[in-house]
């Protein structure tokens, strides 16, 4: 494997070098940044032209200028980064670092959600091929695939942000919405469960009734005005998490795993009360620390109780522990919502920017502020990228489920869950890892539009502003980050593929 990786590194480096040359020459020859100044009647224009020429070394021809830039950029390899100056004379690396932080937050958050949702939806549609659910999801995937981000973004700003914020001021759920939500969830549940008519009807009834009751409860108790996860909801949702984790990793035949996850859920429920004082105004570090502790403790419970099913029990308990931690986190966030809402005049879901300017509050409020700004751009990116993940997972899963080894697994008498999760899903994931890795570069590039629409001052804005000038140094700063990301993830894709599928490694 090592020679393969080294060769890949070597080639990737030269590929990136070639790409920087192309981009630099193209941007540098896209126009003269001084063009507007030449025409102007500004008395100080000679000075401005001189400053611009100096900042961007416009008096040097393009090719030598590229090599001068390259010399500075190569310094990054030995820790002395010099990416040149922007048109205003500030060093590129400073502005770039700030921009990178906010873009990464957006892209990583969206990517994780898109992968989880896309892969699960694709898997479900593959298992329920040619059902109504499959056809609807296929149509929706095509629709999302054909949506321009900037268009859907404007719609979301109007309906998800402005209308939602208005509604939150007097949150009563109208009956038509309850009926609609219940019907949609019911249909979804029936589609996912599949099978005979009786089974589907039961799933429809159960899900629809559950959602309707929940919404009516929320409406009557004015939950949205004073949201929070009370003890009843907490224990209910912890147990659901425990059962779901068991179903996913072990199935219900192995009772011992179910007991382990239930114990984890109970421990989580105890922590819900015990950690109340610590979590009043924590730091981000404390949250991460608690998460690690939660994972270690739940893994310990799984290891201690798992017996013969130890490895499944550890995984299921860790998932349960993670879920309970998330629930506790969410409950504190929700509790902080009314105070936050009052501070920002009811604009809970923001339409512009990455944070509210000059906002100050405790940990929960600043987190809410960031989340409120993240929601819309994240949904936009998720909607667009989820479509391709769903399609790829579906076709990959279909291919795998028709393979001979799946028939063998069924013939051995394994449960359907084991066949799907351990034999099917694992192999179906191989091509998906490649696609995800290749997608990340495109996602960072695609963030250009999302950031423009939502007024984020991230990498996209950085690029957009630089190209309008056009300022080669700043564009190259942007490209160096995206290009490196693409090359690195391409490489990771190749290497993971080699690890996951030994047949590839030979070539």
């Amino acid at each position, binding site marked *: 494997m090592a020679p393969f990786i080294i060769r890949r590194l070597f*080639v990737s480096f*030269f*590929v*990136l070098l*070639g*790409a920087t040359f*192309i*981009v630099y020459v*193209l*941007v540098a*020859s*896209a*126009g003269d940044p001084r063009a507007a100044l030449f025409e102007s009647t500004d008395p100080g224009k000679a000075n401005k032209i001189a400053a611009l020429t100096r900042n961007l070394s416009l008096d040097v021809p393009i090719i030598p200028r590229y090599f001068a830039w390259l010399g500075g950029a190569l310094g990054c390899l030995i820790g002395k980064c010099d990416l040149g100056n922007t048109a205003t004379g500030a060093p590129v690396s400073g502005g770039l670092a700030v921009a990178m932080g906010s873009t990464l937050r957006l892209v990583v958050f969206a990517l994780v959600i898109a992968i989880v949702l896309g892969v699960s939806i694709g898997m479900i549609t*593959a*298992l329920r*091929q040619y059902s109504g659910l499959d056809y609807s999801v296929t149509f929706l995937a*095509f*629709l999302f*695939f*054909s*949506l*321009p*981000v*900037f*268009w859907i973004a*404007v719609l979301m700003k*109007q309906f998800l942000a402005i209308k939602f914020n208005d509604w939150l001021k007097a949150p009563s759920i109208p009956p038509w919405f309850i009926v609609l939500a219940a019907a949609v969830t019911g249909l979804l549940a029936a589609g996912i469960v599949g099978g005979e008519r009786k089974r589907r009807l039961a799933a429809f009834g159960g899900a629809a009734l559950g959602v309707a009751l929940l919404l009516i409860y929320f409406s009557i108790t004015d939950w949205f005005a004073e949201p929070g996860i009370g003890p009843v909801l907490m224990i209910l949702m912890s147990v659901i998490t425990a059962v779901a984790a068991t179903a996913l990793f072990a199935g219900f035949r192995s009772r011992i795993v179910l007991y382990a996850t239930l114990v984890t859920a109970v421990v989580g429920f105890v922590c819900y009360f015990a950690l109340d004082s610590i979590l009043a105004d924590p730091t981000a570090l404390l949250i991460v620390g608690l998460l690690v502790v939660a994972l270690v403790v739940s893994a310990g419970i799984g290891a201690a109780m798992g017996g013969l099913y130890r490895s499944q029990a550890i995984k299921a308990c860790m998932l349960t522990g993670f879920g309970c931690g998330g629930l506790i986190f969410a409950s504190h966030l929700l509790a902080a919502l009314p105070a936050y809402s009052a501070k920002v005049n009811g604009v809970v879901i923001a339409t512009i920017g990455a944070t509210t300017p000059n906002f100050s509050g405790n940990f929960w409020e600043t987190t809410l502020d960031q989340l409120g700004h993240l929601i819309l751009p994240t949904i936009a990116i998720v909607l667009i990228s989820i479509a391709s993940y769903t399609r790829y997972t579906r*076709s990959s899963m*279909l*291919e795998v*489920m*028709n393979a001979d080894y799946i028939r063998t697994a069924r013939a051995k008498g394994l449960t359907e869950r084991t066949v799907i999760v351990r034999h099917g899903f694992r192999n179906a994931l191989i091509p998906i890892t490649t696609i995800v890795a290749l997608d990340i*570069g*495109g996602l*960072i*590039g*695609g963030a*250009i*539009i999302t950031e*423009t629409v939502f007024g984020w001052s991230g990498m996209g804005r950085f*690029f*957009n502003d630089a*190209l*309008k000038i*056009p300022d080669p140094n700043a*564009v190259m700063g*942007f*490209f160096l980050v*995206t*290009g490196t990301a*693409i*090359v690195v993830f*391409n490489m990771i894709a190749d290497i993971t593929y080699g690890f996951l599928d030994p047949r590839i490694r030979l070539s």
Partner: protein
Amino acid sequence: MSTEEKAAAAGEGSGAGPVEASTAAQGLNIVARTQGQLVRRRFFRHRGAMISLTILVLVILLAYTSIGFAGIPGWWIWNYSTPGKVINRGAPTLSVWPTFLGGDGFAIGLHPFGQDDLGRDYFALTMRGAQISILIAFVVGIVGTLIGAIIGAMAGFYRGWVESVLMRFTDVMITIPILVIAAVLGQKFGGAGPLVLAIVIGLVLWTALARLIRGEFLSLREKEFVEAARALGAKPTRIIFRHILPNTVGVITVAATLLIASAILLETALSYLGFGVRAPDTSLGLLVSSYQNAFATRPWLFWWPGLFIITIALTVNFIGDGLRDAFDPRQNRVRA
């Protein structure tokens, strides 16, 4: 397996060969079909693709005949550049809600899609935008497919240093995000008119296609029929164009269709960012971009171009899906 599928299997095996006597003896009514006929049949039976094709053709006809194109006058009364008097805040006069449901009945009115702030007819503007966007998408599709097919074919057929050079070049192009390079080029060439812009975008959008075609060529060049052609003394160009390329037509068609769909979205995105089509000409992306702030007050300025973008991209995507199923029936027959 139905009778038709059996015929398909037989047809695929022997090309347009004669019907086998044994099957006729079993009393099965079998029609021999060529590969082309089979593909066409499967495509025409793909309901989603056929509906999409109809809609797309209608949209293209509507866009190009209504306000005319390239000097040829159209049948619509307004054109897209003449300002007029703004009537009723420019609200659309189109109504389709039938009278018995409490609506105004079907009426087109003077300005069915409304007017913009200068009083220009918005139907004419949207049609102009659609014309330009469709033109760009198809030109990008053709240019990108040509370049991708040639580079992929050369790399896959000749192997050796030709492949290394071409594929490393493809890698270099893939490293640059499409939107970035298209924006850079659009900044330079956007002012030179939509056709130049389209060709330039086509020059950067061929990478995925090249990789795909190379893969096809790599496997096809080892097939017996290629060896036979080589043994007969056929020159490389003849083998590429007469023997291998026709076998990749399916892959190329599907990829080209999907390329057109992504070109539509890329063009609208570029125009939205201001690096694509420039005023006074217009495109669907530019229309959405210019009027996005009018959404709260005059939403129709925002809805119509968006609906046309989605319609075109969605139908092209569905046609691509239908073509894929038609060329690769395996995908259809799998059962979980």
